[in-house]
């Protein structure tokens, strides 16, 4: 059974970034979302968000579709199967990390007592 340090080291840094984690978590709960929604929930600037999406697209975790609604550009983002698996795996690891930390705290308290 791995300890919390090993779990921490095993986290995917591409997914672990807070903004990218929020993006992937949101996208795993819907079919797709547009750029404005993701910008709203992350609080990122357009440039920053585009950069993060570019990284996720490069890793084939998301698919980006650009179109026009009338004259306004519309960008829709959907998560891929690989992206869904990655973010689910990540949250599972974080949960294991939390449990390991709790166990360590309890063990430490018992030892001191």
């Amino acid at each position, binding site marked *: 059974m791995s300890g919390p340090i090993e779990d921490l080291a095993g986290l995917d840094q591409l997914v672990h970034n807070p903004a990218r984690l929020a993006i992937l978590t*949101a996208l795993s709960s819907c079919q*797709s*979302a*547009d750029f404005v*929604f993701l910008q709203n929930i992350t609080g990122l600037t357009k440039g920053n968000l585009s950069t993060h999406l570019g990284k996720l697209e490069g890793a084939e975790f998301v698919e980006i579709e650009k179109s026009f609604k009338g004259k306004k550009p519309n960008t829709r983002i959907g998560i891929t199967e690989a992206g869904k698996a990655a973010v689910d795996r990540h949250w599972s690891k974080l949960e294991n990390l939390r449990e390991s930390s709790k166990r360590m705290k309890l063990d430490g308290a018992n030892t001191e007592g």
Partner: protein
Amino acid sequence: MQDAEPVRSLTSAFNSLRGLIFVPLGLYLLLGAGWWSWYEVWEPISGGLALIVLLISVWLVNLYYSRSFGEVEDDDRGRVRKAWILGSLLVALLVSGMWDGITRPSISVFGLTIAAFILLYAWATVGLRVRYIAVCVLVVGVSFLQVLGIATYEQTHGVVMPVVLGTSLIVVGIMDHALLVRRVRIVRSKVRAQRS
């Protein structure tokens, strides 16, 4: 970000929390309630006029949400669930409306049907919040007005029901919108806190 739940629940409930869409619908019901003389004065165009205003208002509200909050496409499960609820609601309202129209029962089956669907909609989308249960109780109460001798059939269906439903839609819609704003703010602040 410590927890996936705030992001997941915001995203999956996003389309259902766009509550301002209920406001034009609530106003439409209020305008059409039988106690306004404008409706009769402007007949036969009053119905069509009110419907046009409703459609334009709903389009404007959708535009506001799209530009300010963005758009989320529900996953297949969410879409199918909403389609079932909406489809069943339309059929049930049609049948119960016809039933009440023909049999004129002392307890409004139409009202009870609406109350049941309010609960079903809330359970399936935003959760059984107190405001939805309160609206459900109000509508059930209105359904019993005739049998309690408080109102006639015409007063119940023509005035009280549209006024109660219209007002409830407006209030609940505004509250759902406020909840959407709050949840977006919470998620954004959590992500920002983790980034700094």
